[in-house]
């Protein structure tokens, strides 16, 4: 098991160089995502149903399938 995980991990490191560049926290892409999330949070209370508690309570379904 340990050996296998090691093998896999080293396997992923080979590709790591490209992969790591893509998603660091401070990258332009990461910043853009964060900005979008901030925008959504700014307006989320307008989008959410008025009374969260009642809204959630009233959502009752019959089991299906």
């Amino acid at each position: 098991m340990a050996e296998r995980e090691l093998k896999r991990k080293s396997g992923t490191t080979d590709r790591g160089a490209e992969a790591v560049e893509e998603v660091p926290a401070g990258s332009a892409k990461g910043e853009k995502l964060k900005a979008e999330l901030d925008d959504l949070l700014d307006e989320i209370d307008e989008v959410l149903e008025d009374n969260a508690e009642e809204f959630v309570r009233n959502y009752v379904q019959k089991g299906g399938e």
Partner: protein
Amino acid sequence: MSIPKVCGIETEYGIHVMHGDPNPIAASSVLINAYAQEIARQQVGWDFEDESPGNDARGFALEGSLPPQVETHLLNTVLTDGARFYVDHAHPEFSTPECLDAMECLRYDRAGELVLIRSMEAADRVVTDGRRFVVYKNNSDGKGNSYGCHENYLMDRAAPFSRIVEGVTPHFVTRQVFTGAGKVGSETTAFDGEPVDFQLTQRAEFFEERVGLETTLKRPIVNTRDEPHADPHRYRRLHVIVGDANLAEVATFLKVGTTALVLAMIEDDVTIPRSLGLADPVRAMHEVSRDRTLRRPLLMEDGSTATALAVQWELYTAARAYADSNGLACMGDAGVGEEVLRRWEAVLDGLEGDPMSLARQLDWVAKLQLLEAYRERQGCGWDDQRLAAIDLQYHDLRPERSLFRRLDTERLVDDAAVERAVVEPPRGTRAWFRGRCLSKWPASVVTANWDSLVFDLGTDPLRRVPMMDPLRGTADHVDELLERSASPAELLDRLSS
């Protein structure tokens, strides 16, 4: 060689009525009627003659296990894209037509969402008593009631069912790391009362058995319903009930694509070097769902341990080798199999490095990221009802209310392709014949189902056209025939000559 992995997705949508009679069966009927009459402008009934959901793939019926109840007289309709749109139990359900690969399946799953959105809009136009209908693409109400999103895969009858169970169970348990749609809290006794803030999936905690016929009680990881909707001597249809309904396109694509590939390997009896048998698959199902770190070891049958990701890497590595030696013809259109492998590897890499880097690809990550950001801003705990409201509204299909829609997730199909899939059937399966006949002669097709069409030619008796092979009746097979036939009578004459 594995047979083509023809596939489809059936989604039971959650439905909520505002301002009026909350009856979900009545509401679902209104939605479907509104769509059939206002938009599709046709109504073709469903023919139940060949349905047998009580048959067990293990070749016997367990004592005391009741076959699922089929409510045969509720509203049913068949659309020109070959899909079935109907009321199942107390939910509107959309079943995609038979698709040739995961990308096509995704396209028709998205078409289903569009059909439901248009149904809500059409219902708003025709309903005069003030009721408003809201449809959710999720799998639970947070109060212990679950409804399903089932996948179906065509398999060679020659593959023994026991081998399928053994081979696919580790995948069903561990694929949750990318198929989960995310959920705030828990709603069953699966976690023995231990608090759960957030889990990867909507469905996992509803599973109580390894294998079985049920879909509504004591749900099994592998469902044994043996109802091939095709020649039963050649084919089986594996009916998969463990999945969540996904909104993220990459998640849907991978859910179907990786499963098709694992099933192809099982059909070809590929040996995976490491035994992936889990000591307790049901418990593992729950453990994977509640482990946001993806680091929790699962106990294996041989006494060792492995994380869900380690099991996925084993499956991926075997699939990569299988593709290199056998090719990927069974995975449908050129390039789709390779795309499944490429994205499978990328998602496992991402999950291993930083799961949150997959917020544009996976539902549970997208939802969790939103919830965490909201928590941070509001300073609220996991028991705050606004988080449960965000969870629910992530799945709201109304464009102006959907939180999923406001997140910039990665798209694999464009809007025009989804529009086409609302009306045009897949070209490479029998859905083409079903859908095209419905477009061409809506008045003459009286009923349809997966494996037959019934025509009324105005002369007695009604004529049934069997379609027992999902791989026949494709555009290549029947387009010329349909072109040349000026009437359904001509078509039937040619078919019988």
